[in-house]
């Protein structure tokens, strides 16, 4: 009999394992794939070319980095000089340097007013993020039965909210239900900047920049680092290195990790989870089972629904998770040649060291989303690239690079065709679109890896191909993530817990869900 069995070896599961280990338990992590890490992985797309498999930036909470001593376990954080850049097809490249003043100089080439607004926007955004971080750093409160800790956390958040002052406090309330396009247009007038900001409100989600609620996504994704665009950093060696560091920390804390161990189902005995059965038939008993995989798959796929109330099952079925993101990874023989950076100091290579957002305009992004709504793949998608080999040359042979591309919108549900049939068309579309911004890119491609939304589900276990384990919208956030009344990591099955991105707060590769779940589970064990 184990203390705790953890299903899945994604970053949140590893964080949970490490914290439970530190709390004196002996967790066993069971990962289906050959490696742990889930969305945090590095692939060799061609010999000598190592590219982020799925996520290309990571934002593990600094408190978790410290608590688990990840840097001692090999994590090296790289913060590129550029937060993001937006190449245009017919003009210079807008560069949002990490240094805000330098960024303002580049923005000034498009609009002097925007250059002045940008710094104000960053400040306001960063203050507002503080409130959201406070919400994200404690388990969502119980509505029926708030504990003392809930009240303290609520008061603390309330104080932070008040401390914002009227202008920012009302901004927060107004922004949450807004469209990212409106938010961007309230602040800025130049289209490249508007589009670059608004694009972030659609990442991985079934939202266009004009969809109400996309501003909330922008806020939630940016909250961790308090930056609207650069919500994360790179790890030396690629995101896989983060997984390795987390795994090392978990092992160091006493956790055991088994890979190639696929779960067939969770064993439930009279309403209590008592272990898991692997697809090999092996049964492992445990005092608690924790699932790092998404809530839908956990509760509909791994648990026999007869153990759950029909209304609960219906609610789980209604968790929205329609992925729209595809991933294309390239090995290229040369750095893509985008338009020259706007602004007094050129720094052409460094300008490409952060995110590269290819989106002609807010309307162009919206049009790409239009196609997705009817199950189609738009001819003019928007992409976010990173070229991690600029800041970390170890990822590619000298002078050559890896390019990691998110492409939207690739709707999980295609009409009239399948993703297996469309894989090459998807890859060609990405190449063609990048080439339209960086002439000659197509000729520089040595190898490419195309990951469709269906692959995200089949290979990486993300239900609906949704990178966040379910839409991050106001109805699936905080006290309603994954479900109202079940936002505190427990499930209706006793001793079955959730710890993945589908729980509060989710929002990407930051480990907060895993850490908060560990806190709740460890407390339950003490009782």
């Amino acid at each position, binding site marked *: 009999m184990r203390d705790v069995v953890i299903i899945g070896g994604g970053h949140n599961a590893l964080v949970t394992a490490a914290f439970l280990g530190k709390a004196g338990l002996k967790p066993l992590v069971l990962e289906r794939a050959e490696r742990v890490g889930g969305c945090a992985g590095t692939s060799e797309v061609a010999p000598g070319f190592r590219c982020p498999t799925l996520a290309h930036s990571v934002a593990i909470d600094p408190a978790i980095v410290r608590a688990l001593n990840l840097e001692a376990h090999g994590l090296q954080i790289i913060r590129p000089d550029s937060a993001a850049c937006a190449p245009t097809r017919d003009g210079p490249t807008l560069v949002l340097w990490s240094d805000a003043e330098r960024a303002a100089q580049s923005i000034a080439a498009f609009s002097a007013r925007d250059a002045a607004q940008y710094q104000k926007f960053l400040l306001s955004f960063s203050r507002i993020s503080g409130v959201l971080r406070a919400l994200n750093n404690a388990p969502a409160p119980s509505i029926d039965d708030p504990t003392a800790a809930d009240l303290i956390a609520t008061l603390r958040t309330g104080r932070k909210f*008040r401390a914002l002052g*009227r202008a920012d406090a009302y901004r927060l*309330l107004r922004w949450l239900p807004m469209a990212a396009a409106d938010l961007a247009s309230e602040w800025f007038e130049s289209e490249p900047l508007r589009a670059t900001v608004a694009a972030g409100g659609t990442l991985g989600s079934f939202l266009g920049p004009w969809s109400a609620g996309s501003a909330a996504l922008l806020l939630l994704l940016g909250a961790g680092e308090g930056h609207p665009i650069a919500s994360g950093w790179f790890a030396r060696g690629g995101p896989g290195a983060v997984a390795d560091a987390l795994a090392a920390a978990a092992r160091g804390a006493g956790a055991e990790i088994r890979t190639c161990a696929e779960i067939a189902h969770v064993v439930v005995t009279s309403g209590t989870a008592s272990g898991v059965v692997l697809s090999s038939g092996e049964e492992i008993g445990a005092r608690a089972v924790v699932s790092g995989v998404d809530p839908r798959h956990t509760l509909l796929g791994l648990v026999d629904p007869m153990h759950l109330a029909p*209304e609960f099952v219906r609610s789980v079925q209604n968790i929205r998770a329609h992925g729209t993101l595809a991933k294309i990874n390239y090995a290229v023989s040369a750095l893509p040649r985008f338009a020259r950076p706007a602004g007094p100091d050129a720094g052409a290579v460094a300008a490409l060291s952060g995110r590269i957002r290819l989106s002609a305009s807010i309307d162009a992004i919206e049009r790409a989303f239009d196609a997705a709504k009817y199950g189609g793949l738009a001819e003019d998608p928007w992409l976010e690239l990173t070229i991690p080999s600029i800041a970390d040359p170890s990822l590619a042979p000298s002078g050559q690079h890896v390019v990691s591309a998110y492409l939207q919108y690739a709707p999980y549900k295609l009409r009239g065709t399948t993703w297996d049939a469309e894989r090459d068309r998807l890859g060609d579309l990405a190449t063609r679109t990048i080439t339209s911004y960086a002439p000659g890119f197509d000729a520089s491609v040595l190898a490419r890896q195309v990951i469709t939304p269906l692959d995200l589900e089949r290979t990486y276990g993300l239900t609906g191909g949704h990178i966040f384990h379910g839409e991050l919208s106001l109805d699936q956030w905080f006290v309603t993530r994954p479900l109202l*009344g079940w936002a505190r990591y427990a499930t209706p099955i006793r001793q079955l817990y959730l710890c993945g991105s589908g729980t509060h707060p989710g929002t990407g590769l930051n480990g907060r869900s895993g850490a908060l779940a560990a806190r709740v589970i460890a407390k339950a064990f003490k009782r």
Partner: protein
Amino acid sequence: MKPHAIVIGGGHNGLTAAAYLARAGRKVLVLERRHVLGGAAVTEEVFPGFRFSVASYVVSLLRPEIIRDLDLPRHGLEILPLDGTFTPMPNGDHLWRVNDHAMTRREIARHSKLDAEAYEEYGKAMVEMARFVKPILDMTPPDPMTLDPRELMKLVFLGKRFRGLAEADRYNQVQLMTMSAVDFLDQWFETDVLKATMAASGIIGTFLGVRSPGTAYVLLHHYMGEIDGAFRSWGFARGGTGAISNAIASAARELGVEIRTEAPVARIRLQGGRATGVVLANGDELDADLVLSSVDPNLTFLKFMDADQELPAEFVEEIRRYKYRGSSGKVNFALDALPDFTSLPGPGAHLRGAISISPSVDYMERAYDQAKYGEFSRRPYIDMVIPTLTDPSVAPPGKHILSCFVQYAPYKLKSGTWDEQRDAFGDAVVDTIAEHAPNIRDIILHRQVLTPLDIERTFGLTEGNIFQGELTLEQLFFLRPAPGWAQYATPVRGLWMCGSATHPGGGIMGAPGRNAALRILGQTR
């Protein structure tokens, strides 16, 4: 004698506010720009013998308190039932829902047995939600940034009410406030045409699509309509929508309110930072202790005032940011005979309710897609009624009126002007109806096309928004019309807002007018 209060605008909210103030013994003067009262709730004889409800055409949300307090039935208000919604489909089928539960259930079961079951459940859940929301309509929104204990108590009150809901209802409430109408309905139903028709109520008057988050909330409005205590029913006013305004005006006059038409206001007069009256377009200056504006914030603050001189800069910024984005038009037809729908031929009872051109969710969404980029929908969503079947008095004998609410018609066109596109827009409406009722082309005697620009010009609704500003979450409750200014007061002492741009917003509810008056009288919680 100088009136205590001047009300700018003789729409239903302005009149309601005036009546409530007069009821408390205040002397009130209402100033209306047009020759008729009612604002967008107006009946006009546009063609000889045909009295159109030119803009707003059905009533559902008129607060029962107002009907009671002002004794409107005695002043001529009579609400006639509007039963059911008929949706023709291009495949020759149709969906026809009526108030009779058993009939509707059988009809939905024809499309899906599961949906027929779910429909009952859904109705019950929505009524619960409507009960939850109803008191919120009648309250002055709290200011979440204040430390005033009375304001904080309101927040606690809301929190308590929420906790008092059963778990499933809480969830519904959260979802209603945040989801898209289609996502919300997807959880209950599988029949596309049913979802499309129900979702349509979520987009009316907003520049959003049925798949846009935030549209689910308005689904509730359908269940909040209370006429004579009957939850959920919709109706016509006998004599057209203007009859509602006239009844309120009659009640107001009886209470001593003076009402002047053709008295357009040019400026709100300030002295020492306080509103002291108005200046009319003809130069007349009128004094009052208070000025209430029932027109939208754009007119109130940016047209009738020197915003940069007379108002705080932050407030002006909020008022400039407030979104209108009119997205609908209105086309009224005088008909020689009844339209004949191929999917349910003949002059049956299905023509007596609403007729909804909303055959599928994709149809609705595509109509929105076109509008996003600045074109009117070639195949729009149309909500039609034929009031003459219920109230023959509004047309010559044997003739009919077809009143069509049409969406989307974006105020800002990508190319051309609305004056150039008016006829093309009217034609698109005829073409769309003709796909379902081909005889329409042969029976039109007259047609009146109101584009968003016409709505702006005629009714003074900025950008043609029928609700005086979009009903989106960031412009509701304590954010309507501006954060910190949702309690009917303005930064100018003595100047108050009482129109649809204030909580709880548009529709012929009268709640903004009533709430504002009660607030001024110090009679609200």
